[in-house]
């Protein structure tokens, strides 16, 4: 096809036109692209930047260090220790983790079963999830792994904080312990702090740890990290450390608590030491105890079963949860109820023939031969039951119950401890409500000597003693200061009892210790400036039937342990200017004067002396025994970590 030059020229011209049209269209497209670019990169850059950051920047929480807990003298009683562990990430190990595990097992003991377990876990998780291989390594193990890290690809030695209780079992019941957050814990909290979701995070489970949880927890810090599309952390952009929880100073005296625990030994017992004026609890010790550190680390089922099966119930906090018939330690309540009502006075005398007969039933005095004529002071000194039987019939249960509550028995005390029991100060209305039965006169007689329906915790007995000693309604308290700021000390109100009446009760308690026929005379303090007042109590855990009584009451030693009487003792000192009130309950210990009083006296002496009781404070014949006892004790040597002691 031959083309003419003219045709050729037309073609070239047309082609030129079309080429320019095409160029125009192309320019239009380029303009569209440029405008779109401008719109995205200049007009909406901020939005896209936010999206990009949202993609790549993640916030990771940093668990805060838990607040420390000190005793009143600044001794550490709950702290945090470094927990060394190693984690392994499959991706970093190059996919196959088994050789790494084998190499690691040459450095730290890892059983074959554990390796199999770990391999199983690795196969389930994504390659970038770090898995904890071993926990709570010693520093030596940890550093040997760190040194060998180049040969252990994928292994990261990490350290975190874990709760530690340097005083082990001494304060276990008051302090409680922490543990990993369970689903149940989360379900109880309405708006859970996100930090609780962190693995390894520890939450207060029992005692002060759980009651002061919000104070102790602190505020979580945060790390801004850059992650890649697989979620793997690439680098840290910024870091804001968490805020450690508040440092809490308790009113407890760890040294005294330690001594009390040692003094009670293996007995199933409880001891409470309270400042008479402020209500500060210096010691609130339940025996036997357990090691809370085991719970923090995850207690083995064997250890746990041993604790559960122990007949002395080491897990129970007998000081506030244990309720006991107060026995004769309750007699001050009955006496004060009588005196306060005006129905009796210091001149009242009752005759004790060894029993009282009411409604055809015979109520025995602990002393079969009777005490003869007894006045109020002597009634306490010799703990004459008949005096109180007579008194109860005149005063009536309602006044006794009311006085018990006034002195702190049968009322709740607000303490940051778990399951603080309320106890029972019975009266007619209570029995009607509880049993739907009318009050019997026999109930009054039993209640008058702290038997029957009356139930009190060792804490309440200490409160009662402190209130009698001070004449004011002191309340127990446990928190001394938070972050160095002392907790306000509420001025205790006056009990509203006439001082003369209180002096009579105190005199009776003094006579118990120092009177010629005092039931606890043997446990007296021989130093006059620490002169001690107290009251013994022995409460039955079974009824003595008439038949048994006829045969002669079997002595406690002949009974199986769990059927023996509870031994109780309350006391305070110094008599003239009271400082400390102490209550001791020895479960199934036998007599209050023999089992409880010596313990209470020694603890009281430790509190007064602020150290090991001086031997000259006890009667000369007991000094050798005491010295031997102290030598056998395994006491902490105090190492104060914070200055400023207070014993207010």
């Amino acid at each position, binding site marked *: 096809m031959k083309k003419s030059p003219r045709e050729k020229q037309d073609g070239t011209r047309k082609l030129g036109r079309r080429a320019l049209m095409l160029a125009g269209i192309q320019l239009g497209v380029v303009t569209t692209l440029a405008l779109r670019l401008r719109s995205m990169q200049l007009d909406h850059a901020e939005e896209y930047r936010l999206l990009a950051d949202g*993609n790549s920047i993640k916030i990771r929480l940093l668990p805060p260090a838990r607040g420390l807990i000190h005793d009143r003298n600044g001794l550490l009683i709950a702290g945090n220790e470094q927990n060394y562990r190693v984690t392994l990430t499959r991706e970093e190990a190059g996919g196959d983790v088994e050789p790494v595990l084998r190499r690691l097992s040459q450095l730290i003991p890892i059983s074959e079963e554990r390796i199999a377990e770990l391999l199983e876990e690795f196969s389930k998780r994504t390659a970038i999830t770090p898995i904890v291989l071993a926990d709570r390594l010693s520093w030596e193990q940890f550093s040997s792994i760190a040194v060998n890290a180049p040969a252990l690809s994928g292994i990261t030695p990490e350290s975190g904080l874990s709760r530690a209780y340097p005083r082990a079992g001494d304060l276990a019941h008051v302090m409680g312990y922490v543990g990993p957050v369970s689903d149940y814990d989360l379900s109880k909290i309405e708006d859970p702090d996100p930090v609780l979701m962190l693995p390894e995070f520890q939450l207060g489970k029992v005692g002060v740890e759980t009651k002061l949880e919000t104070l102790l927890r602190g505020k979580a810090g945060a790390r801004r990290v850059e992650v890649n599309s697989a979620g793997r952390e690439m680098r840290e952009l910024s870091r804001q450390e968490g805020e450690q929880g508040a440092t809490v100073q308790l009113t407890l005296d760890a040294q005294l608590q330690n001594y009390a625990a040692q003094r009670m030994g293996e007995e199933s017992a409880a001891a409470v030491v309270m400042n008479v004026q402020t209500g500060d609890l210096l010691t609130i010790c339940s025996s036997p105890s357990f090691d809370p550190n085991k719970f923090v680390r995850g207690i083995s089922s064997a250890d746990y079963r041993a604790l559960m099966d122990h007949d002395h119930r080491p897990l129970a906090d007998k000081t506030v949860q244990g309720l006991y018939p107060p026995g004769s330690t309750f007699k001050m309540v009955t006496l004060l109820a009588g005196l306060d009502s005006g129905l009796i006075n210091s001149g009242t005398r009752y005759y004790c023939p060894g029993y009282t007969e009411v409604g055809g039933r015979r109520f025995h005095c602990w002393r079969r031969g009777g005490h003869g004529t007894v006045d109020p002071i002597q009634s306490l000194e010799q703990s004459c039951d008949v005096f109180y039987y007579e008194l109860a019939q005149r005063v009536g249960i309602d006044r006794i119950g009311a006085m018990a509550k006034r002195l702190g028995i049968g009322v709740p005390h607000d303490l940051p401890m778990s399951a603080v029991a309320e106890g029972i100060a019975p009266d007619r209305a209570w029995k009607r409500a509880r049993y739907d039965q009318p009050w019997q006169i026999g109930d009054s007689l039993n209640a008058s000597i702290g038997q029957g329906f009356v139930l009190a915790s060792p804490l309440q007995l200490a409160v009662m003693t402190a209130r009698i000693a001070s004449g004011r309604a002191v309340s127990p308290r446990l928190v001394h200061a938070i972050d160095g700021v002392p907790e306000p000390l509420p001025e205790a109100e006056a009990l509203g009892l006439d001082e003369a009446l209180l002096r009579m009760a105190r005199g009776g308690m003094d006579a118990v210790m120092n009177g010629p026929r005092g039931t606890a005379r043997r446990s007296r303090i021989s130093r006059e400036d620490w002169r001690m007042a107290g009251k013994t109590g022995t409460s039955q855990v079974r009824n003595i039937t008439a038949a048994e009584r006829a045969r002669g009451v079997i002595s406690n030693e002949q009974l199986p342990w769990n059927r023996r009487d509870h031994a109780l003792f309350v006391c305070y000192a110094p008599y003239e200017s009271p400082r400390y009130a102490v209550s001791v309950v020895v479960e199934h210990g036998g007599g209050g004067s023999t089992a409880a009083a010596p313990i209470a006296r020694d603890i009281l002496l430790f509190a007064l002396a602020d150290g090991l009781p001086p031997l000259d404070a006890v009667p000369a014949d007991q000094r050798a025994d005491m010295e031997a006892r102290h030598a056998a004790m395994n006491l902490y040597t105090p190492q104060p970590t914070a200055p400023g002691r207070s014993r207010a």
Partner: protein
Amino acid sequence: MSYLDYQVAQTPTGLRKILYINWPLVLLLSAVACVGFLMLYSVGGGRADVWAEPQMYRFAVGMVAMFALAFVPMWFWRGVSVLSYVACLLLLVAVELVGDIGMGAQRWLEFGPLRLQPSELMKIALVLVLAAYYDLLPLRRVSRPLWVLIPVALILLPTAMVLKQPDLGTSIMLMAGGGIVMFAAGVSLWYFAAVVGSAVGLVYAVLKSRGTDWQLLEDYQFRRIDTFLDPSVDPLGAGYNITQAQIALGSGGWSGRGFMQGTQSRLNFLPEKQTDFIFTVLAEEFGFVGAFSLLMLYTLIIGFCVFSALSNRDRFGSLLTIGISGTFFVYFAINMGMVMGLLPVVGSPLPLVSYGGTAMMILLMGFGMVQSAHVHRPR
């Protein structure tokens, strides 16, 4: 024009041809390729040996090929146009029969160490054969229906085969490249209006056909349409790529986040960042300044080609230049439109920048022919 015509026209001969090469075009192509090396180095995480070095090697080979082709006289290209078209068609058939499956589509042919993508070769061959066709066809017949049908058939035959692979991106490029040559040759605008009209109708039919027995596209293609229309429908699935690409692009801002500092690219949020989505890496790290500069480089390349075509009195050389530069234009326009969310994701690389051997070789060979047309143009 005959062999004699070329001789008569005062075209340079021998090594003197090198003086007549379109040097600004060479410079522009190298500049674009350098942008590519830089981005591939960044995408490789600061390592040249991952992407950048092989790409440089290929570019060097491609440049040598371009210069070699530039020396080949025009009559040769016209002479081999039909042959090359037929050869490419046969290769496409061969791919259909024995081709390797790559990226979910049959695209590759293996000849020992050589991996061939016939559909890429076809882009050039189609432009060649159409340019030769319109060089022969008298102008008065250009718009006659019968004479329009022949080039349409020439276009649709390979397009259909490529679409069957399936490779939507390349088939669009083939149609666009062929259409551009027809447009430049002077085919009546009514035909183009009719094509645009029926294309709109076809799109409607395609969308309508979904879920019926006569469904016209693969399911994955429908999903791409869905995600194009609204990427947020499935931000972690099919829409993930385009959403992440737009985040990368937009977050670049005016001057970008800095070389190798783009979080979207460095932290692997971007998909296929060394190939189809490499423009987003540039836009993220160098911002509007970088992205617009690349766009301008491309525009200048087109500009120089159009200028070369306008100054070329040889119809075949002119059409060849417009066809190849037009294909090149569609290449980057589709890629940029795609990553900016203006077009659906069709899977087309950014020419000379995306990592990939065949595409770069073919493009540089194409520009070799453009150079040849420029060097040998009748003056």
